[in-house]
């Protein structure tokens, strides 16, 4: 390390000699640092492009979903049959009438089944009586 006084005493020839003799030594860690920095910069650029692609994908999906929802709403509302009654009381009365009809048909079926069951029981009793004699 040269002191300021020494430098002040040096002439131009001395300076030229020092410049020729002393090579500037490249620090060993500089090259990897530069490489790492370049790689980091390139990766960040790639990730930015990737992010942009994703944003377009999300916007596209959102638009598609909105269009699908509107189409679904139009299809459902146009294909749904129109209510026969505007008044719930009248709809309820119709439902009661229908349920009474269903119930009467069910009761018909059950009474017919009971008749058959009675006949089967009668036959079984007859067979049992014959067997017991």
């Amino acid at each position: 390390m040269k002191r300021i006084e020494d430098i002040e005493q040096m002439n131009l020839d001395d300076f030229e000699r020092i410049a020729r003799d002393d090579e500037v030594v490249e620090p060993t860690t500089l090259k990897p640092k530069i490489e790492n920095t370049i790689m980091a910069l390139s990766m960040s650029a790639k990730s930015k492009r990737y992010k942009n692609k994703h944003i377009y994908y999300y916007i596209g999906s959102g638009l598609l979903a909105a269009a699908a929802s509107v189409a679904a709403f139009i299809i459902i509302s146009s294909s749904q049959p129109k209510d026969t009654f505007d008044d719930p009381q009248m709809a309820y009365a119709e439902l009661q009438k229908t349920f009474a009809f269903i119930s009467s048909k069910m009761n018909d079926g059950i009474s017919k089944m009971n008749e058959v069951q009675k006949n089967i029981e009668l036959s079984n009793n007859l067979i049992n009586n014959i067997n017991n004699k």
Partner: protein
Amino acid sequence: MKRLIMLSVMMLFAITSFAQNPIYDAYSNKEGVSSVYISPMMFRLMGNLPELKVNEDGIDMSPAVKSLQGFYMLTSESVDVVNQLHKDVEHYISKNIYKKLMEIRDNEEYVNMYLIEDPDYVRSFILCTKDVDSYTFICLDGQMERKVFYDLLKHLSHF
């Protein structure tokens, strides 16, 4: 993106077949057919009627009525329609997973009842009656608890 488009198309197909009764759609506007449709919205309104909340058995029937999602009824006395309607209903029932609940035959008249149910719920109920010159098709869709469905049948038939 391709997957998304495929999904959207499939959703649209699903929506078009959603909550519709093809028999009702095909016959409700035909000449010689009278039709009744009650929508899920009307069932929800009906569920708020005071007579459903307190009945003679002390049972609140409003949740059961609110669980109904569609009531479709078609009746016809036109011979041509009767035969075609009968064929179409039979085809519709055979194509779906309906189980026969009851069949009654009495001379010229016959009555069939079908159900789609699982251990807990009745999903759909169909009753069709055919005479020489008349046909009635009744379809009730929803997610009704089995017990509630039979209670509803019992309760609503008292009037």
